[in-house]
């Protein structure tokens, strides 16, 4: 796995997978509805990673790191020069999600979910950040809910892929910059089991998602 397209695909797969799988496990609430276009919800999010573009792309050649980013959720299969298939399981271990990733340029790739709970497609662009600020990862994500009932449901749960996206970007940035996603979940405390469970629910709300 050495070609740039390969590394690239890995980055996309991580984003897309964290997203796709994240969305199936997320319980979120929301305040604003995302933009609608041609029947799709459209969200755009970006994050700045303090590394040059090459380092960012190259990061994903390290299989161990990739596995850690994917948390054992996904496998990646090369279809041809520019196309990849990513199959992901949710945390319960069921295969829940399959996407095709296409490298469309040196700094751009796109993915399309072929099977999964929410029809979804997206695009990742890498853009050099101004001055010495590293690289911006910019993602545009489109998703929709099929049928009137699902759509009604979607109005309530419309934020999930968006929150998943922000969470995924934050995780990727942290992995690249410092090799881990910090977690304080099992730090010692004087709590009993019940209190700890309640605190973990708070932690979950304070960890995932992002700005209102």
């Amino acid at each position, binding site marked *: 796995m050495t070609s740039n397209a390969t590394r690239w695909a890995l980055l996309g797969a991580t984003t897309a997978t964290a997203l796709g799988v994240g969305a199936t496990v997320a319980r979120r609430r929301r305040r604003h509805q995302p933009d609608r276009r041609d029947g799709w919800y459209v969200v755009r999010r970006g994050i*700045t990673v*303090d590394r040059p573009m090459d380092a960012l792309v190259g990061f994903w050649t390290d299989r161990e790191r990739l596995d850690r980013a994917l948390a054992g959720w996904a496998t990646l299969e090369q279809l041809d020069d520019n196309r990849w298939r990513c199959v992901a399981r949710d945390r319960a271990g069921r295969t829940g999600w399959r996407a095709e990733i296409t490298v469309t340029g040196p700094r751009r790739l796109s993915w399309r979910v072929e099977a999964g709970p929410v029809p979804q497609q997206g695009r990742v662009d890498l853009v050099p950040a101004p001055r010495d*600020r*590293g690289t911006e990862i910019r993602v545009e994500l489109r998703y929709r809910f099929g049928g009137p009932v699902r759509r009604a449901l979607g109005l309530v749960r419309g934020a999930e892929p968006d929150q998943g996206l922000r969470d995924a970007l*934050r995780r990727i*940035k*942290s992995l690249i*910059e*410092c*090799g*881990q996603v*910090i*977690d*304080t*979940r*099992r*730090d*010692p*405390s*004087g*709590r*009993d089991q019940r*209190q*700890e469970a309640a*605190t973990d629910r*708070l*932690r979950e*709300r*304070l*960890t*995932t*998602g*992002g*700005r*209102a």
Partner: protein
Amino acid sequence: MRALCWEGVGKLAVRDVPEPRIRAEGDIIVKVRASSVCGSDLHLINGYLPAMREGDILGHEFTGEVVETGPGVQRLRVGDRVVVGSVVACGGCWYCRTEQFSLCDNSNAQPVLTEKLWGHAPAGILGYSHAAGGYSGSHAEYIRVPFGDVGAFPVPDGVPDDAVVFASDALPTGWMAADFCGLKGGEVVAVWGAGGVGQMAARSAQILGAERVIVIDRLPQRLATAAARLGVETINYADTDVLEALREMTAGRGPDACIEAVGMEAHDVGPGYAYDRVKQSARLTLDRPTSVRQAIMACRKGGTVSIVGVYAGLVDKFPLGAAMNKALVLRMGQMHAQRYIPMLLDRLAAGEIDPGYLATHPLALEDGVRGYELFEKKRDGCLRSVLHPVR
């Protein structure tokens, strides 16, 4: 192990808790030898900073011995005596690279609350509530320190625990406050608050070139200690008009720089701590910035106001007009521990700074509740209680 836990607003208790374990490659486990109380803890204990949970272990200013290292740790060895900065920093983001460690992008495990409150999440802080990452604190026998290579520093031989412990927080905070003032030599600097932080700010301002330092508080004993230990002038705001006194002492100019080391000591209301109450609490006047107001009014035209006292939310009647029309420079922030600690340890070893006198009440960890009582009520001349899990 034993640890001092928060049990609800105003309530603390020493309890049995599980020992921490290495969770990530860069983690270290430190066996705590001394752990100080800090003015910031009072804001947490009394519910003024949101997001404390029952059972949280307090404490963020400490020194101890490395007893375990994660596989990724390179700079430290088991057995090293270290002092650990309160602020958690990853060492790999832009903010860390530019030495703005308290703004680290990756060290707050739970960034959503502060993103909503402040627009962005600053760094995590050990033992400092779920708004600052939900880390367990140092008032315990052992503590897990993430990014050990970045945040823990070997202690020079001969510097006692009860002095070096302040290189963790009070001293770097005081130093940063003085650093913010941009002193070139010969200035008059006024410091609000004669607690550990204010006294270290006063000492730092002297080292950085201030010709006169004036410390303001209402506790005669603290003012007397500052005068005796540091040779500063003092004003007791309980019986003196501070603005008048400062004008008088500077022949009408006002101090060149004003350091605020008090914080939201006097508040009106305590907000809820939960995530879903953020909006509500953000509408309240959280902090009463009496001393910030005074510092702005007192500062000479074109001078610097340096704020290291902690504020959490919105303030009322902020004299923006005075700050604008007098062309003041305002600097503020949580301290960048990792930027200053190595330099400060050298100064401790050389005897240039001796913060040991702040530890007026060395106590066993088991006496932690009393330690906080003494500190909060400023009883018995308490400047800082320092807890010792191992005696």
